[in-house]
């Protein structure tokens, strides 16, 4: 088997093992949440009998390791379980599948993350490469200063400033990003414009600075001097000689930031009233809707593991020592 393939399979296996470990941690942390789930879900007014019936219905009377196994077995079969809210004990069974709750929210989140990535990743690479090329120039310094400024402000602040200038003082873009399944694509794009802009400003600095640093780091290599002495221009040195060897660290940082776009944007969602998965999870934690919380946490873990796996693979296939073994 080609060593790259075996490495990828090995990483994939490790990823699955990590996921299993994470599922245990998720389950245990939720167990540690204070209060009785039944009592909190049903509210102060619930009688002892209702709470007991509710616990029985949800299987909360079973020992936790059994509940964990039930959950994991379900997840493996593609069943994230039933939401706690609207269960039979509260009168009639109006509860919904967790997958059904998470599905549309996840789609929204991935849409927002995808559009942001499409804009910010190429932009960050372009800025990173060009600042490396013109390092220490006015251009380089001003780009660095600007991106550092935008990353230094908290994201809600960036969001409100953008709303003030682009939505309040000038009515160019909508400040509310409330979309639903029926919103057509062009309308959808217009509504997410401000959240996308906010997130781009927040994540671009990290990726751009890493690109710049990774390239500049390589410029001290003897093979760069060799390229210069064989007549390569500055641009050729950067693009052909430094960049191909810099992909691994750049990919790692990009993966990290993309994962953040999926799992860490609840503040931006709240500011723009965007129905993403972050808000869903926060709501579920407040109402102790445990299956939803677990489902969201698991999706976040998968996101991290998958993106890091991809970054690893990029690191491997751009390393000729691994791709073309002796």
């Amino acid at each position, binding site marked *: 088997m080609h060593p790259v393939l075996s490495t990828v399979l090995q990483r994939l296996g490790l990823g699955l093992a990590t996921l299993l470990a994470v599922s245990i941690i998720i389950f245990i942390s939720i167990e540690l949440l204070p209060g009785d789930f039944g009592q909190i879900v049903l509210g102060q007014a619930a009688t002892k009998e209702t709470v007991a019936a509710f616990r029985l219905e949800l299987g909360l009377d079973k020992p936790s390791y059994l509940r964990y196994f039930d959950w994991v077995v379900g997840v493996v079969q593609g069943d994230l379980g039933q939401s706690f809210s609207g269960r039979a004990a509260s009168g009639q069974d109006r509860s919904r599948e967790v997958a059904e709750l998470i599905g549309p929210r996840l789609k929204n989140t991935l849409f927002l993350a995808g559009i942001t990535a499409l804009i910010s990743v190429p932009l960050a690479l372009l800025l990173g490469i060009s600042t490396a090329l013109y390092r220490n120039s006015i251009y380089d310094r001003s780009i660095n200063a600007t991106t550092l400024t935008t990353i230094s402000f908290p994201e809600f602040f960036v969001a409100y400033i953008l709303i003030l200038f682009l939505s309040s003082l000038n009515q160019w873009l909508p400040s509310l990003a409330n979309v639903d399944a029926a919103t057509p694509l062009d309308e959808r794009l217009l509504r997410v414009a401000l959240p996308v802009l906010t997130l781009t400003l927040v994540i671009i600095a990290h990726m751009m600075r890493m690109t710049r640093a990774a390239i500049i780091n390589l410029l001290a290599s003897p093979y760069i*001097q*060799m*390229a*210069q*002495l*064989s007549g390569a221009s500055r*641009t050729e040195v950067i693009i052909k000689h430094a960049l191909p060897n810099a992909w691994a660290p750049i990919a790692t940082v990009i993966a990290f930031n993309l994962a953040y776009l999926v799992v860490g944007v609840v503040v931006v969602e709240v500011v723009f009233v965007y129905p993403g998965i972050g808000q869903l999870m926060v709501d579920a934690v407040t109402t102790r809707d445990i299956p939803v919380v677990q489902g969201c946490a698991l999706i976040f873990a998968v996101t991290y593991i998958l993106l890091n796996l991809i970054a690893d693979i990029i690191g491997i296939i751009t390393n000729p*020592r691994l791709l073309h073994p002796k």
Partner: protein
Amino acid sequence: MWLIGFFIRPVVFVMNKSSERGNLLLDVKDLKIQGFSDEKWHDIIKGIDLRLHRGEIMGLIGESGAGKSTLGLAAMGYTQPGCRITGGNIYFDGVDLANLSDVQKRNFWGDRMTYVAQSAAASFNPAHRLILQTTASTIRSGAKSKDQAYSDAMDLYKELNLPDPQNIGDRYPHQVSGGQLQRVMTAMAMSPRPDLIVFDEPTTALDVTTQVEVLSAMRKIVEKFNTAAIYITHDLAVVAQMADYIKVLRYGKEVEEAPTREMLSSPKEEYTKSLWSVRSLEKAEQQKSESVLSLEGIDAAYGSAKVLFDVSIEVAKGTTVSVVGESGSGKSTTARVITGLLPQSAGSVTFDGEELPKVLKDRTKEQKRRIQMIYQMADTAMNPRQTVGEIIGRPLEFYLNMRGVDKRNRTLELLEMIELNGEFLQRLPSELSGGQKQRVCIARALAANPDFIICDEVTSALDQIVQEGILKLLLRLQKDLGLAYLFITHDISTVKAISDQVVVMNQGEVVEQGQKTDVFQPPHPAYTELLLSSVPDMDPDWLTNLNAARQ
């Protein structure tokens, strides 16, 4: 806007490459270069002239810091980052490179002048195939089409005796050996058929047997195309094989210049004479006496890769055993087994009559104290944040429980032994020269009062004159303190200088061992013969004769 530059090809200067031998090609006049370090500018080249005619090879020699690499690069109009030309002219075929912009100079680089670097492994881009790198500048300049350049590169590979010349170019740098890579780099330098090639210590990183092949290949091809070259090295015997003229540099100034034979037979300056005499150091051989350390039937492996096969070596009290061999021969692995860093898979290590535990952590403090080690890179073997006093004081405290005044006095004594003094106590390693650093490492080893010291290539990173000083010091310490050394080296002249017994190793096995005079006396086993015959002599005809003899 920066993208635009990527698509505009440089405008090629149209110049006729007249390759008539004898015309003046390079005329460097009163060149001055400064380098920036420690917050100020220092003179690196202090006014040097250099004239080179077409088809000639100029050898530049000198110790590190003499400015030979800086001068070699400056001959191409290139200065390293942090350096600047402050005066003088560099006329290349009538054009003063010192007054051109980088963009203008780029038209010469990779076309009319090329460069061969010291470490081919580091100087090839790991991301691209060899043939792409070999032909890049030739194709860029428009001198040849891609197909022409590729087939020419394959011819050059063949000319340079590379294996499988049709396909070796499809490989990546890490897929070929160091000696092959250095020849590919020579092909790369030759591909645009330049007027001038600068060779910057191209064989320094190679084993002697490989060095011979690379030198022969380089000389052959430079002669064939009648290319002028500057050959930079610190190895006199090597430069004697390559150059028509030799220029000796020191502290950024020229010491003297003369045709090679004249320079070798009758150097004029004192400094040049001292360079020439370094290789004459030779220890009077001692006979074997009572053994202090003996290895018996040692096998060792890194993981599943077995690297030592049935190695038996004996070191007698107060004598030096040199272990010679090329990289990969298992010399350093042997040292790791003795120190317990790599437990052997078979065999035993006996020290002063008792068998040593295989693993370092099972050995007693006393056992550890009596075996010390000195390393090749004195730089990395010392903590850069500790002063010399702390570095030497640490083993005194650890092994001998010395504190306070005792420790200080003993440290001063040790400093005197290595010909330094109390002024050095408060210095940091970064404030020492290469030779001084190695001396401090020796003092640190001595601080433990050892009976036996392993010296792992301790002089390889040093200039020849400094090497001589260190070797003399080690010999004196051996006489005064009755130390036994296991001296690991790949350099035959060092072996002659320091050893009583010699062990020749190849691919993890002992090929030959015995008293120094016996080992250097023919007949030799085949490998010893190859190794010894590959060590260059100061005779300019040595390489020619050797190649004739090997035919």
